[in-house]
């Protein structure tokens, strides 16, 4: 199967191709399709670009190594987001423990708390400085929301997943997803009340 034919395939067809024939082009296509959405998701969740890149790379390697653990009845997107989400949560836990056990104060934590300014080359050149500041403030507020709420809010409002898909990704019931999204948004509203009134 050549590249043109592969690019017309759905995600699930591509992973099937990769599973059955070990077609590396199918894997590359899936990486190409999901690298940016996953970067966006992980960055909003973790708040650090370098760590985010590492996590997404690790997600892809996990996908490469464990391609057979994917079952065809699930959506590929939910499967790959589950992997990325778990890696991102582990990273947060690791960072939290490192902060608690650190004898040298919380210098690392301070670094983590600083808002990472996005590389301007990724955005449209006509973007105003005001929106940049706003997006930084929003990111900072997002990182202050509890991780359990933050994850579902990002998946819903930034990544645009349905409740069912989020429930599948997070392995929660739809009711729990809805309530967590609601609480997450409420927390964000409190944190960002000055912004959205403008």
């Amino acid at each position, binding site marked *: 199967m050549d590249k043109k034919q592969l690019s017309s395939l759905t995600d699930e067809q591509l992973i099937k191709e990769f599973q059955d024939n070990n077609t590396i082009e199918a894997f590359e296509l899936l990486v190409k399709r999901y690298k940016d959405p996953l970067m966006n998701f992980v960055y909003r969740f973790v708040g650090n670009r370098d760590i985010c890149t590492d996590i997404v790379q690790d997600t892809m390697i*996990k996908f490469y190594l464990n391609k057979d653990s994917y079952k065809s009845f699930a959506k590929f997107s939910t499967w790959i987001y589950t992997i990325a989400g778990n890696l991102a949560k582990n990273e947060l836990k690791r960072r939290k423990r490192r902060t608690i056990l650190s004898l040298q104060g919380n210098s690392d934590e301070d670094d983590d708390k600083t808002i990472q300014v996005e590389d301007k080359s990724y955005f449209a050149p006509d973007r105003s400085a005001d929106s940049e500041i706003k997006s930084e403030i929003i990111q900072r507020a997002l990182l202050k929301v509890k991780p359990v709420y933050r994850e579902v809010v990002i998946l819903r409002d930034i990544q*645009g*997943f349905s409740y069912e898909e989020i429930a599948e990704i997070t392995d929660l019931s739809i009711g729990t997803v809805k309530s967590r999204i609601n609480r997450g948004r409420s927390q964000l509203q409190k944190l960002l009340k000055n912004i959205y009134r403008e």
Partner: protein
Amino acid sequence: MGEKLYNSKDAKQKEIIEILSKLPGVKAPDNFEFNLMTRIENGSFEIRSDQPVGINLRWVYLPAGAMVSAVVLFFVFVYQPQEFENLLMQKPTMRSEVSVNKADTMVLAQPGEDTEILADSKKGNDDVAIESNVMNESTGEYKVVVQPNDVVKKEKIDFLFNNRKEIALDNYLNGNENNSPKNKRGKLVSAGDPAFDFNGFYVRNEKDQEVMKRLKAQMDSLKKLNQQK
């Protein structure tokens, strides 16, 4: 990624939803795929561990470890369990249970009897004897001594304390020796000597002056006779 369908709750939070949806997307670096494929080709699959590892707990366990080590060292090197018994806490032994063995004597103390044997200091070392059965008579303590030639002899035991709970001070001062009466010290208290009788105080009588004069006259006459001879 499905469409956004706002329900009633979503409508209340419309503003925050709009703010979040307008956030600029973050893209992967340009060399992302190249780096990924390089890692895969090189087989360097070192994934950031799923498990929250890398927790350096050495400093947490350090005080506890030091404490345990100190306790172990204390018990190994410093602490010695007391093997001797505290005499003040000991139950006092019955007199009947006390028996003194000399190397050259064998004492057969029978329980229940009022037996007490002290080493006989008077006895010479040549006289190897088997002592047994201390006899309690009204006058004092006696012991039966079986001599090497199978002669059974009854000997009196000289106790430092007699029946009257007195100290035989005279014997002690004289060194328990049989001195001649001339060398013997005067008896101080005569304790322990049942034969001692108190005779009352000695009263000094003044001599009669006339008798003295008469005796002097007799002495003078005798002296004169001797000079005339």
